[in-house]
Structure formats: structure tokens, C-alpha cells
């Protein structure tokens, strides 16, 4: 009985792992152009119309699927506050690993001062082949067992090469410590989001939704 359970649990984990690997293929990308099943939409807290209108982006995280819904982002900056309180022990916007302020004011013709309210939290894509890591001259950027890229604060010389190399400028040089830092998928930003614009769907739920979709 006990063995069976372990086996079941292992099977479950394997299928969740399969799911995660599948989603890694589109991590950090918009879902526009795809149909999402009703059960997954409900988990993600969004609508097909939002998917179609390019408002939804998903990110593959070790513990689940991170869904970013730009239609729901109200620009309160609590994601940045939580990020820096937890990771840096202070409150800041610039060094936050999740970035909303730079999209908030004037973001390429959108934003608060452009007569619309299009802004969204943005963060590290945890690239398989990280630009930042490859650019780092002292090999301070490494991946942990979950594939999350970290910056070794001891090794970092604060040259800013990673910031320049990242197409989205996600690593940020802290002007006070002169060290670079980036998202380590701690999840504090999601905890702080008051409208669910940042939401995490656990892998077991995504897997279940896939099975349900396949059955139909």
C-alpha cells in the first residue's frame, strides 16, 4: 500500500515535470495566438479575450506557472516593494528584480503619461542560455538545481556587463553596493500583488488541467 502510494506520487511528479518542461519552451512569452482551455483559463484567472489581446504572458517557475496579466496590473508597485524588502532589506524601485516602475510612466508610447494605463510587471526570463551569464567576465552567474540563475555576490565585480548583455536589462547594478542582482524566483512579488496581475498556478493543477483538456 505504502509502496503504491510512493509510486503514484512519483508518477504524479513525473507528469508535473513533463508539464513544466513543455512550458519552458514558451517561458516569458505572450500566449497571443493560442487557445487556452476553460479549465486552465480559470486557474490562470484570465479570459481567452485577454490571451488574444496580448495581455497574458506565462513564465516557467520551479514550483508552478507564473501568469502575468497586464490587464490587471494597477501600477501599485507592491511587487517591487516586496521584492526589495525580502531580498535587499530595504525599499526601492530601481534595484527591484521585478520591474514595473520603468513601464509605469512612459513605456514606449504607453503608460501613465501617455493617456493609457498599459503597464505590467516584468522580470528575468531565466534563459536556458543566459546572455547575462555568458557576458559575465568573472563567471559570477550560475544556475541552481532548479535552473534559476543567481549572481554570486562575492564574485561579482559590478562591471555591469550582465546588465548590458541582457536584452531586457533585467539584472540591475545596485548603485550603493556596486553589485549586480537579479530575480531568483523567490515569489515575494506574487505574494504582494493585490490584483492577481502576478499569479502562480502550481504544476499539479496545470497537469490536471492538461489531462482534463485532453479528455474532452
Amino acid at each position, binding site marked *: 500500500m505504502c509502496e503504491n502510494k510512493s509510486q503514484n506520487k512519483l508518477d504524479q511528479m513525473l507528469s508535473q515535470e513533463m508539464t513544466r518542461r513543455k512550458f519552458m519552451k514558451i517561458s516569458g512569452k505572450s500566449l497571443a495566438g493560442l487557445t487556452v482551455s476553460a479549465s486552465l483559463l480559470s486557474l490562470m484567472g*484570465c*479570459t481567452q*479575450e*485577454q*490571451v*488574444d*489581446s496580448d*495581455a*497574458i504572458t506565462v513564465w516557467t517557475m520551479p514550483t508552478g506557472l507564473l501568469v502575468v496579466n*497586464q*490587464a*490587471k496590473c*494597477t*501600477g*501599485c*508597485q*507592491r511587487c517591487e*516593494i*516586496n521584492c*526589495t*524588502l*525580502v531580498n*535587499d*532589506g*530595504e*525599499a*526601492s*524601485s*530601481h*534595484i527591484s528584480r521585478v520591474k514595473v*516602475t*520603468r513601464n*509605469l*510612466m*512612459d513605456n514606449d508610447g504607453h503608460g*501613465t*503619461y*501617455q*493617456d*493609457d*494605463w*498599459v503597464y505590467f510587471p516584468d522580470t528575468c526570463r531565466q534563459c536556458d542560455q543566459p546572455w547575462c551569464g555568458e557576458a559575465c567576465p568573472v563567471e559570477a552567474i550560475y544556475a541552481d538545481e532548479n535552473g534559476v540563475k543567481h549572481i554570486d555576490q562575492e564574485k561579482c565585480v559590478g562591471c555591469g556587463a550582465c546588465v548590458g548583455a541582457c536584452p531586457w536589462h533585467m539584472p540591475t547594478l545596485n*548603485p*550603493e553596493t556596486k553589485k549586480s542582482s537579479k530575480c531568483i524566483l523567490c515569489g515575494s512579488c506574487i*505574494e*504582494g*500583488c*493585490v*490584483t*492577481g496581475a502576478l*499569479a502562480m498556478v502550481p504544476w499539479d493543477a496545470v497537469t490536471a488541467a492538461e489531462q482534463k483538456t485532453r479528455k474532452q
Partner: protein
Amino acid sequence: MTTYGWSGKILRVNFANNAITTEDTMKYKDYIGGMGIGYKIIYDEVPLDTHAYDEASKVVLAMGPLTGSGVPCSGRINMSFLSSWTKGYSIVDAHMGGHIAHAIKYAGYDAIIFEGKSSKPVYLKIDDDKVSIEDASHIWGKGTFEANRILVEENGESFDAATIGQAGENLVNMSCMITSVGNSGGAGVGAIFGSKNVKGFVARGTGSVKIADPKALKEASDYMLRELVGGNNNHNVPAVPQSWAEYSAPSGSNRWSGAPGRGWQKAEGGFVDMGEQPVGDIDKIGYRAHKGYFDHGEIADKYMVKVGGCSSCPIRCYAQYDIDPLADYDLPTKVSNTCMPIIYQAAWYPEGIKDFVDEGDANIVICGAGARAVDDYGLWDNYGNIQRDFNYCYKSGILKEKLSTEEYNSIPWDLMIEGDPRWVVEIVRRISMNEGEIAKIGLGTYLLVKEWDLGQEYLDVEYLQNVTYNGYPKHHSAEDVWQTGLLYNIMYNRDCMIHHMTNVIQSGSPYEIYRKILEDEFGEGAVDKPKHYTPMNRSKAKLAKWAFLGKQWHDMATLCNWMYPMTLSPSKERGYKGDHNLDAMYMAAVTGENWSREDVDLASERVSNMLRVMTAISFDIHEGSKNLRKDHDAIPAWVFDKEPDFKAFEAGTVKMDRDDMEIAKTMFYEEMGWDTETGIPTRETLERLGLGYMADDLEKRGLLPA
């Protein structure tokens, strides 16, 4: 040395000689920040006989140790300066939200002192420690929407901006400063910047606010978000029944308006349903405030894109609209505001307004046009007094009498009569551009009465809502808490901006629940049954003192007084009781110092007394008055004569009683440690608060009570 909470520096900018210097914030530590620092600097540096538009006049824009610290609802700025428009021309404050307070703190400054006068239009640029005065000739004459957009575009990523509109440039007393979309600071601050040729400022900060105990701060914030915070105005029960909630507010005075089936129809990708927002679910708090529905009902959903608000605040009290019927009139359709601009523009149409596309949409369309116009021109409404003055003067024939026939006939009254949204834009333009005699309405009520010789009886008219004879209206007053509300309404030199009690009374909670919570703290009889009040008592005086002091704390810390203090909670487990120790908990976590509620109260009492002393000195200088009770705290007749079908104290009335209100003042002055005859602080009180130097000043002027 690291300063926790405080950035540690105050920026001083002199626009006459372009000198930019910094000073240590810590010399003002007793005054905490915001309003406290503002009052100390104005008192020390600007003689109270200075005219608001003189070169010697200053604006002290200040934040506090909690601003930008991550504490929820800590995105506000306080600006202190001398009034250009109220009786006594004493000290006033403008309060501004948005996102720019965070930027200034992260750039390393707790406050900015604007002084001197530039010879040409300029703006201030703050880019961390690089601070410069920049040419503003290309944005002078433009509205705030365009000016702010140009400034963020030309300065670059992550810059935020705040500017004055044409009203400020043209020295219209009723003027404000605008940041984000419709976040404004009023009280005439626009014209003070205008008198200095300063269009505004931009800021970007790559630094941080240092936190002594970030773990404790995160825990306290999460505790507030899970257990204490409610909806808009911290109303602690939802407006509409929600399955997890024991109570809801059957009628429409509650501002936790987000509910299943309500939401934003113009959101990207279609309708966003605000759903239920159970206590404890942090990821749904942002759907509790649906100010659009509260202001305009069901029709609001049709035009809502999103909600917005200030940095760090989970309660998104700004409704963000795309009101497309305005496009037919070539007017901008994007509108966002939360206060008077988006609810009170129909008052510009004394003959009424009519629907546009749908039944019941007249008000939202007109308010959309008006909100955009007043915010663009940077015209401040003095909490609706500007509209009421216009409306009353039109209806009573005063306008016709005071305006020349030529001017009167030049006004497109047909637009007004037809309910055309271009009317509100036109009238706002005329006042903001200081065009013609009608622009005198922009002087503010007190000076309008003088200018047009309308007599004191004008201020006794109920419709006009003046709460004193000094030029400003009530702001959540007797209709919520009778004597208590009226007492703190008459303490300031502008509308009081205190939300302590309306947040409780209009919360939708059953009376018995909030009665117990308030009586436990302030004593028996502190708060009367809805619409059925009793004569003045000591508990009410204590309650009034608490609310009066608390508002100063919020403008010092800075925290939003629309949300704080956390008097009530939506949690049944807590018995719906909030936590009045929260502010001290935040101070301790952020600064690493020992802070108790008593410390918070003492600091608030200090600055409250500075307000009173400075008001006394100003009234002596400008009015030759040595008695604030008689000359500043006088209450217009309508407050006592309204509702002729009722007697005072009868169930169902807000009508106040003259003798009872005098008893109320006496009790309140006693609680405050003020002389009961003049309402001026005694030396003993001032010494206790470390304000002995102010007692000396009063004594020199012959104002110190014996």
C-alpha cells in the same frame, strides 16, 4: 551613518540665485516629516506677514520616515506654505499622492524647500544627487497633462513629473499641482509655484529607503493586509453581500464597492469581474475599491479600463475611464480621478444636465469632461466651493450684476443650458486664464465675498457649505459625528481633510459594533446612533482630539488619511476591531527606534499646536484679532438653522445647537490644553510639547493666554 526611514537630507533650491544645497534632516527630527518639517521651516524662515506670492514666500514639500518605506498607503506628499486666499492668510497644506513621493525619497531627499523667484520659467530636475534647474519655456502655458508627458519623455525612463497648469501660472488662488493622472495637491499651491516661475519638477531615484528591521516591517504590512485593511476609506464591510462576510452595507454610502458582476468593461481583453474579496486574500484587495460604481453607479462599469492610485497602496481608489461620448465633442476621453473633480462637475450646470448615450450617464460624462479640464488647467475646486460659488452667483443673479453686459453676453450660456460638456471646459478655462470679472471666482470664497461685497450673510447660506467664515467648506463634518466632526472641521485654514470618523460611520458596520470599539477607547457616549445625536460630552471631545491629532500624524509620517488609522477591520475573528498601535509598529520596524502610540500622539500634538499658534499669529497680523475662538472658529448660521422641521437632538437631524456647540468648543479646548476664552495654546501646553519658543513668540505679541 545610516538613517533608517528618513533619507537624511533636505534639498533647498533657491530660484533667485540658482543655489542648490542640502541640509541634514535630523535637525528637524522632533517634527518627524511632512507637515511637521514644513511648519517648522515656514515658521523659522517665512515671516507670517509675508504675502503668499512675495519672493520671500516658500513652499516646503516634505515626506516622512514612512513614505516610500513599503508601508501600505505611504505614497503621499505634504506641501506647506502661506495661504493666499483664506481669512488670516495663515499656514495651509496641499496633499498630493501618485508615485512621485517614492521617487524623491529614493533619490535621497526627505523634503524640498522651494524659495526665491526665477527670472524665467524653469523646472527642477532631481536625478539622484544630480539636481538642476532647467528651462521650462517650452512647457510654460501648457496644461499639466501635456507638460508632464513632455517632461517624462525628455528626461527619460523612470522619471516622474509634477507640474502646475495655467491656473497656477496666472496666479489664480484656486490652483493646484498635478502628478500622475489627476493626483493633485491643492490649497492654492499652484499659484505659489507660478509666482516663482516654477512649472514643476521631475524626479528619479535609484536609491532606497533603509529599513532597520525589514522582516518586522514585512510582517506588519502583511498583518495589515490580511487582517486590518478594508476597502476604500477603509470601510470594513462590503457594499454588497459577499459569501464570507457577516455584514454588508444595504445602502450606498459604503465605498467597498467592488462586487460580483461589477467591474471594468473596457479592460484590455474585455470585462474584468471584481468578484468577491474575502478577508485575508491579499491578491484580491485591489478589487475592493470600485470608486466608479460608488460615484456613478452601474454606468461606470461601461467606461472603466482599470483602477489606479498611489505607490504602495493596495486600495486602488482611482477609477480610470475611457469615456468615449466625449470624443463627439473633440474632448479627451481618458479620465482618472477619485475626488471632487470626478463627482462634482454638474454643479457648473445650474440649469441641469441631460443624458448622452445611456439612461443616467449625464453625470459621468460631464464629470469626465470637467475632471480632465480642472486637472489640465490645474484649477483647484476648494472641495466644491468654486462650483458652488459659481452656481449660487448664477442663480441668485449676482453674476449678472457683477459682470459687464459685454462680458456676460460673451459667455456661451447656450452650452451650459444644453448640458454640453464643452461648457465646463470653457468656464474652467476662463477662470484659469484669469479672463474677465467672472474669473474672480478663482479668488476663493473669502476674497470673492470681499471683492464683490457679498457680506457675511453669503457665508451663512446652507447651499454654500462654508464651515467657518474663513473661506472653505466642511469636509465630512456634523453629518457623520455632529459636534466631534464640526470641532475638527474648524481647526484648519482649509477644508479639514480628516477621514478618521467618516471611515467608521459610513463603513456599513452595524452601529453596535463600532460603538463598542470607540467607547472602549474614548469612553461612554463617544459616538451617537446614526442620525440621532445627543448633547456634547467629554468622550466626544476626546474623540475629536484624537481625530484632529491623528490627521497631522498622517501628513507627517506620511500615510494616507483616507485609509488610516486602522480603526475597524473586516475580520470577524477580531470582532471587527482594527489596531491603533499599527503606526507605532511601523515606526519601530522602519526606524529601529522605540516607538509607542504615546510617542506618535505626542509628535502629532506638537505639530497640531504649531498650526494653532501660527494661525493665532496670522490672525493677529492680518485681522487684528487676539481671539481664535471668536474670529477663527466661528461657525456659520446655516449649521444651526438648517432642517426647519427638526429640533436639535431630535432623531433624524444634523441640525446643530448653538449653545451646545459652545460647550463643545470649551471642552475641546480643555482637552487640547488651550485657553478656553481665546482658543490659544497656553504656555504650559507649549512647554510640554517642546514649543517654549512659540510661547515666547505669543507672549511678545501679546497673544499668550494669561
